[in-house]
């Protein structure tokens, strides 16, 4: 059999980061080819190259034996390559038919929209798929699973020859997944080339013929799914070299934070953990496991449905971030640019922001204190900027993170929550930041860190809690922290083996 879609020696570099190195895969018609690997291993980058959203730095994509010279995603779509993204790309205020034919609406001879034809064509496709969805329905009225079906119908109506599904099952129930698989089987039977990205190992034997395993922008193995076990695949995903980094010994002291069966309706459930002074506790898991939400709830930024939070052994009710800060808790959010810093304000103003009320004199800003504190932290944390008046938007990611750390250090926090602290930060700045984290806990502070970067967790964490799909799936102590344990706890469990 001849491969229909081929990627050959694809490499993709972003400024400072190699996302893909020399990737070659053959995709065959009528087969479903899985791409698996950790977050950031390069699967999404490859998909974006196939869909012509990114241009590869090196290498080529071949469609039916011919080199593709697509200039835009639309060219790729016109050539029959359709991507169904993780987040559905549906306009909620348009009908099913309107969404299916968005951008390629059938027209009458006079140039006006041929609504009748559009709706009957749409209904026909839906009918052929065996779906009971009315083409006139507004998409806002459909469930997540139905929307996914509409996306597939859209792809089928365009007669796509290559269909990419990016984690399609992450928000579907078991029953909905089965009907999705039914459609995948139908498309395979129609000789469509399917590419399937997933974190759920159990799905591979059900729906896929082949799988390629990504690690750090490389393909480490390619298997025929029916020839290998799930364990072999997981083993291929792990096993990264960690270098000669010696993790400092921390001695855990008194308990600072304890959380008991914390719940937030529909987001996370029964989260219980504790964190002591002098240790770095990490939360591991896949993106979307609910870790960020737990942290925001503890910080008072969102409301909890039930559960208890204790600080120094005493139960507290933190209603808002103001409350949290006055109890010496700081939270450095994942998205520095959106929720971490005022980009158009200076380093000084950003460091002072949460601390202004505590140093004010009769409501007036204590400017000398503000300047002095900013100078002190700029020096201490070695923030690279001309002076404290520099706008934070002009700083590098590493330095921005140092400003955020400064503002919490200036607030005298004892418990520091760090959400993906080194995301988008280069290697050297990371090492520097880890050193600052170590210093903080050695001085009696406590860090709770959310990280999706496994080597990072292995490098810096004293204890790890793992979450998956809003649930706590395990706790690992220092000796147990390794990639295998982290991966197996983080993988979404199938419904039947789930005790809940």
């Amino acid at each position, binding site marked *: 059999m001849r491969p229909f879609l081929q990627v050959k020696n694809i490499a993709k570099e972003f400024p400072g980061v190699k996302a893909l190195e020399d990737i070659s895969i053959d995709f065959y018609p009528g087969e479903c080819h899985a791409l698996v690997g950790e977050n950031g291993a390069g699967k999404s980058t490859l998909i974006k190259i196939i869909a012509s959203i990114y241009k590869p730095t090196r290498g080529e994509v071949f469609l039916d034996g011919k080199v593709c010279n697509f200039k835009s995603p639309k060219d790729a779509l016109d050539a029959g390559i359709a991507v169904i993204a993780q987040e559905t790309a549906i306009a909620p205020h348009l009908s099913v038919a309107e969404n299916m034919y968005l951008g390629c609406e059938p027209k009458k001879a006079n140039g006006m929209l041929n609504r009748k034809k559009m709706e009957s064509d749409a209904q026909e496709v839906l009918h052929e798929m065996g779906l009971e969805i009315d083409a006139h329905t507004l998409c806002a009225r459909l469930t997540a699973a139905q929307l996914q079906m509409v996306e597939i119908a859209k792809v089928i109506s365009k007669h796509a020859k290559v269909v990419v599904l990016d984690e399609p099952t992450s928000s579907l129930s078991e029953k909905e997944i089965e009907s999705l698989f039914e459609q995948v089987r139908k498309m395979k039977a129609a000789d469509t080339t399917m590419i399937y990205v997933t974190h759920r190992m159990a799905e591979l034997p059900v729906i896929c013929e082949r799988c390629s395993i990504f690690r750090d922008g490389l393909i480490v193995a390619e298997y025929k799914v029916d020839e290998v076990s799930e364990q072999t695949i997981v083993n291929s995903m792990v096993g990264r070299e960690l270098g000669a980094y010696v993790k400092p010994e921390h001695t855990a002291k008194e308990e600072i934070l304890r959380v008991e069966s914390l719940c937030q309706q529909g987001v996370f459930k029964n989260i219980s953990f504790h964190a002591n002074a002098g240790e770095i506790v990490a939360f591991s898991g896949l993106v979307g496991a609910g870790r960020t939400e737990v942290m925001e709830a503890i910080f008072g930024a969102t409301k909890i449905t039930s559960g208890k939070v204790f600080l120094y052994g005493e139960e507290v009710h933190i209603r808002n*971030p103001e409350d949290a800060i006055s109890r010496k808790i700081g939270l450095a959010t994942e998205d520095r640019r*959106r929720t971490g810093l005022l980009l*158009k304000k200076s380093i000084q103003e950003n460091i002072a922001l949460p601390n202004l009320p505590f140093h004010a004199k009769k409501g007036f800003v204590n400017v000398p204190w503000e300047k002095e504190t900013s100078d002190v932290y700029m020096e201490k944390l070695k923030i690279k900027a001309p002076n404290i008046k520099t706008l934070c938007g002009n700083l590098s990611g590493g330095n921005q993170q140092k400003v955020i750390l400064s503002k919490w250090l200036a607030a005298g926090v004892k418990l520091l929550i760090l959400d993906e602290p080194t995301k988008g930060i280069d290697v050297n700045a990371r090492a520097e930041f880890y050193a600052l984290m170590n210093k903080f806990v050695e001085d009696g502070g406590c860090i709770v860190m959310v990280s999706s970067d496994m080597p990072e967790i292995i490098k810096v964490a004293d204890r790890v809690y793992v979450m998956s799909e809003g649930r706590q799936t395990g706790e690992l102590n220092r000796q147990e922290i390794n990639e295998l344990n982290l991966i197996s706890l983080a993988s979404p469990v199938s419904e039947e083996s789930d005790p809940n």
Partner: protein
Amino acid sequence: MKKANIKQLATDNIVIMVLILLVVGFSIGNATFLKPANVINLFGQMCLNAILATGLTYVIILGGIDISVGSAMAITGILAAKAVLALGAQSTAVIIVIQIVVGVAGGAIIGLFIGWLVAYRRLVPMICTLSLMQAFRGLAYIISGGGPVYGLPNGFSLLGAGRLIRTESFKMGIIPCIVIFTIIVVIFFHIILTKTVFGRHVFAVGSNASVAHMCGIDTKKVTLKSHTICGITAGLAGVIAASKVNNGHPASGDGYEMFAIAATVLGGTSLAGGSGSVARAMFGCAIIAIINNGMTLMEISAYWQKVVIGAIIILAVMLDMAQKGKSE
């Protein structure tokens, strides 16, 4: 590097340069423009707008807007007139106290209401205040009984129309009371905005409300307070406007919101929020007052004046957008 600095300085201070250009242009074009009598007039003319723009600056820095300020003016003006009549106040001091109390309290209630709608009921400021602009205007006619409230004692007009320091050549007095009053209001709210923690919070919320929230700032309270300040300045402007004409008129302040927004934007306050200054809004007020005054002196029709003011606002906003495009 030096060249870039000069260019930066020029763009930062473009409003001042425009101001100088206008002054030079009009003084060449018309001999009376720079005469002391006209200059005094000019300052008097920009006062109402300056008071309105002061409070509006807070709301615009937050990323919001209040276009009901003109209608709010009418309400407090009428209330002040009615209060003076109802209490039968005759002494000038008592009348001024009544005026200020009604202006501040009436304006604060209006501002609190708007702030509550915007912050706690999440109404879009534009739509909310557009509706209230209509509602307040209607209310003004209802409480005034459809026409102006007349028959006020002389003391009522001191704040808006009185002048201090009489001399031989200026029998009416040199310094209008309204100018002194305006300077006090402007300086007071300028200090609140630039020196206090609350002022800093206004900028933080306007720059990025989620960051502010995560830094422990009660963003809703900040919004409520800012709208209250905007209400207070509108209330004071309403009272002064009534004092100026010595009656409480339900049509008072009609269209003033546009001038105040224009002045604020001309003063460099970004409609997207996060930056701005009360002091700079004063330059905006001066520009608008000078254009109106100068064109009147040159006998250009009032219709053309509207066209010119509109064009200048568009230019100011375009400039604001160009600045932003550069920084992104």
